[in-house]
């Protein structure tokens, strides 16, 4: 084989994960991104759309248009894609619990452009197991959720053959703390659960076609050599799975296809410019070796840990991809790792580890039944990752090493270097959805919803035709979801914290703090008790989980009920549980709406304990939160959790009239 390709490879598809405020504003953004050389669309929906609530739902408060675009009905989808030719566009939609619904809206929008569904190409993320494990935008219990996925696979493989009905995601697992072995093993176990579910919904002779339509969405961290090996290992396992478990023989169908977003968990708030180097190296992990190169890439921005990226920040990340693809010689060679001992060794190691861990998941009854096990394992891995960073074992430049820095000019602008979404947009969306409802044929809507409910309750009928009919009839996102919630029921995913190992042999600081917790508890009369709460639709649970686990490890009693609670639920739990302090975690940007709401609810119930807050809180918002009664605010730069715990114990002691330690 020659060491040069006869012809330079075509570059991967370049995307930017984007969307905010309204469909019209996001449409403008998409058009300008496409004009800059982006080659595919990647739609970020807001949390109400992802969890199935309309903008005027109580649970949507503070979240409408915040971290993505709100799409409440066919009219919003049409506005979002206005002027974008869907027969030629390749669109990735990060949508899961409500994936069937958003695909239906996409199909109906294409219709209105005169494009048939068979011409559409793109991806619905549609991976519910990782929502239970890491991402948090689930709506229905596991059984019905898996059925919806199987229905979409069965439908698209016949009707929208160029569509990827599901992206099996390992990306979010790494973001939740997974090791490379866990990332591979849980993603592959997940794929097995999905394919097994699909096998019950499609004829046996179509399994090869189904297998060919399953793609992956992976992560790549800064240890980029090992990360590349990980992708090669996944390709090996995928092919083996196809051949052995599903009898696939078509070579093309057996190919491991993946899109990627590189690691964001490791991107820092401290010295944020360093994130650019990290992103570039991570991009190499998914492009270097031709045999395991990404089909589609989207990159985070330098200001990832500060807040939402502005168009300029996203442009910078797109330009990274373009330099890599068009300026370097990367695309001129065959696989550069062919025959590499190092690569072969790394792949072998990862395969061995992943196969063993897949066997453990299988012992737990597979990925659906194994959610509790996998979740606990992820929380535990993340605990270990944080411990290494705290102890300086894992170096993070600018965070725990080389911390002296000049002031960064990047964050000096009036906007603080991030995009903020105008909160007035929410009111507009509420009005808009109400106007939509009053302008439609209500009888047709009701009939469509009744039919949807019937199909949902049926044993074998596919959900897609009734869903597409509902989209045409003017049904809203909230109505579609409510109808299914009524049939399927609701679900709360496990928190994983209960089984996390204890950091028993921790530092001297930890031991001293344990003594102090004992002393303060003694003086208070009962053990120091903390409630860790996650108000709103925000699914970022890492911070809350690690705070909860560490609070336990320093000797506190901890109440943590998981994500997606209302301020009222949190305040009621705090009252019932008699906690000495309430800690709230919000990363989705809705802290200015939700934190004061929790404080108000607490005080209304006579719960007068200190409230501390952590998450993505821009500097400018700290004062307003303190004015609302918050005692302390923590952000990612406060990586030393034992320190945070020291503060909390001191705060409780002060408020409880306990004298400070001698």
């Amino acid at each position: 084989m020659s060491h040069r390709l006869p012809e330079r490879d075509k570059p991967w598809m370049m995307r930017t994960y984007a969307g905010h405020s309204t469909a019209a504003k996001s449409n403008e953004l998409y058009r300008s991104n496409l004009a800059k050389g982006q080659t595919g669309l990647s739609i970020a929906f807001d949390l109400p759309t992802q969890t199935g609530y309309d903008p005027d739902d109580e649970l949507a408060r503070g979240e409408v248009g915040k971290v993505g675009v709100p799409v409440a009905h066919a009219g919003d989808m049409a506005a979002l894609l206005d002027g974008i030719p869907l027969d030629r566009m390749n669109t990735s939609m990060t949508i899961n619990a409500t994936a069937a619904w958003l695909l239906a809206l996409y199909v109906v929008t294409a219709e209105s452009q005169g494009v048939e569904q068979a011409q559409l190409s793109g991806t619905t993320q549609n991976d519910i197991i990782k929502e239970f494990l890491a991402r948090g935008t689930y709506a229905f219990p596991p059984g019905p959720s898996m059925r919806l996925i199987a229905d979409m696979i069965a439908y698209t493989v016949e009707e929208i053959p160029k569509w990827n009905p599901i992206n099996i995601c390992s990306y979010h697992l790494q973001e939740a703390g997974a090791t490379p072995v866990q990332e591979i093993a849980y993603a592959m176990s997940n794929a097995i659960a999905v394919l097994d579910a699909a096998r019950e919904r499609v004829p046996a002779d179509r399994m090869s076609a189904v297998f060919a339509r399953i793609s992956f969405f992976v992560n790549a961290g800064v240890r980029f050599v090992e990360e590349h090996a990980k992708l090669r290992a996944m390709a090996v396992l995928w092919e083996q799975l196809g051949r052995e478990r599903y009898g696939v023989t078509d070579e093309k169908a057996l190919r491991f296809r993946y899109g990627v977003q590189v690691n964001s968990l490791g991107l820092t708030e401290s010295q944020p410019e360093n994130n650019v180097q990290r992103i570039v190296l991570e991009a190499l992990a998914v492009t270097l070796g031709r045999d395991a190169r990404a089909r589609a890439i989207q990159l985070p921005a330098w200001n990832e840990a500060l807040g939402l990226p502005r168009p300029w920040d996203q442009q910078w990340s797109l330009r990274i991809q373009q330099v890599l693809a068009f300026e370097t010689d990367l695309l001129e060679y065959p696989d550069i790792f062919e025959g590499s001992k190092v690569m072969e060794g790394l792949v072998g190691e990862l395969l061995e580890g992943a196969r063993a861990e897949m066997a453990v998941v299988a012992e737990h009854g597979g990925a659906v039944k194994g959610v509790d096990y996998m979740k606990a394992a992820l929380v535990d891995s993340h605990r270990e990752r944080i411990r290494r960073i705290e102890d300086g074992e894992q170096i993070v430049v600018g965070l725990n090493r080389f911390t002296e820095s000049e002031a960064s000019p990047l964050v000096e602008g009036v906007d603080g270097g991030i995009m903020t979404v105008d909160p007035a947009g929410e009111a507009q969306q509420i009005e808009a959805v109400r106007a939509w409802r009053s302008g439609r044929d209500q009888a047709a809507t009701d009939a469509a919803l009744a039919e949807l409910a019937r199909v949902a309750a049926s044993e074998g009928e596919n959900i897609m035709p009734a869903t597409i009919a509902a989209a045409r009839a003017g049904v809203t996102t909230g109505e579609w979801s409510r109808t299914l919630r009524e049939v399927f029921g609701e679900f709360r995913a496990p928190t994983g914290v209960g089984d996390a190992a204890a950091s028993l042999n921790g530092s001297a600081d930890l031991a001293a703090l344990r003594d102090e917790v004992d002393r303060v508890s003694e003086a208070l009369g009962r053990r120091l008790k903390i409630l860790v709460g996650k108000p709103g639709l925000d699914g970022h649970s890492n911070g809350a989980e690690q705070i909860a686990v560490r609070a336990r490890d320093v000797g506190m009693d901890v109440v943590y009920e998981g994500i997606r609670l209302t301020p009222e639920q949190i305040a009621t739990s705090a009252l019932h549980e008699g906690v000495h302090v309430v800690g709230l975690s919000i990363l989705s940007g809705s802290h200015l709406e939700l934190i004061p709401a929790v404080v108000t609810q607490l005080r209304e119930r006579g719960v007068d304990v200190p409230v501390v807050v952590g998450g993505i809180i821009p500097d400018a918002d700290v004062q307003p939160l303190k004015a609302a009664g918050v005692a302390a605010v923590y952000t990612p730069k406060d990586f030393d959790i034992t320190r945070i715990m020291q503060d909390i114990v001191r705060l409780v002691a002060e408020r409880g009239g306990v004298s400070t330690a001698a």
Partner: protein
Amino acid sequence: MTQLDGSALAARLRAGDRTAAPDVLNLVESRTPAARVQADALLRGVSPAALGAEAGGHVVGVTGPPGAGKSTLLSELVRAWRAAGRTVAVLAVDPSSRRTGGALLGDRARIAYDPRDDGVFIRSTAAADRLGGLAPSTRAAATALAAAFDVVVVETVGVGQSETDIAELADTVAVVVQPGSGDTLQFLKSGIMEIPDVLVVTKADLGDIALRARRDLSAALRSVGERETAVLAVSSVAPATGIDELIAALDAHLAHTDVAARRVRARRATALADFTAEHGERGLRALGGRREAQRWLAAQNPACDVPSLVGGLEARTVSA
């Protein structure tokens, strides 16, 4: 912090004021000497003498192996009880390890309820050192809350022999097992385990395996000559099944139980547990041993409240 007033809390409970519940728990959990005095006042204030009768709430113990589905089942039971207009307090005793002193209390997360509904109260506590053991505060809390709530549930983790604490405290004990839990079957057959008042097999949605478990457990009960115990299969995932039947079985058990006798037994057992928690084995020896203490307790007035019983035991050690 201001000291909570036990008599005032008791008065609120007697008046049916359920909003007293959080402070009742804060008080009985507190170990400061001042709080202990007030907690005694609280218990005296909800004693049969103060109430004029045994407290009206049905004290239900829900116990079983870890992960059997107890809390998820409680979520459905709470929903059904509330729909029937009955108020419910849940005391969830979490088994999580106290190796570092602290505990992650996870049961609450599984129980769904309307936060605006003051007919539901849920409190989590860490278990005592022993599996299935009850902290003194849980006994006191259950006793007190039974004066103001229609149902008081105590969730504990227990397998085999470890349910004795809850059996002493509750009017009705429901043992909850999941399909495929052979342990319970063996314990029942071999007589290691006390016969529960109600036996519940969860996760009926799993199908055959749940039905088989139910059949096997019924057979095991018959083989040890027990025909009274109801054996039910329930599913707590939508669509939930067997919940109304379970409630009926719990009610039926209560109707056939001499509640007063159980309560007397509970108070005496609680007094002994409180005494032992405070004075340890050495204190027991000073009384002439556990048996002797039990004999003395059995000879007391049945209506006697817990603080008085404990006081009596303490007086005997001093005089001994």
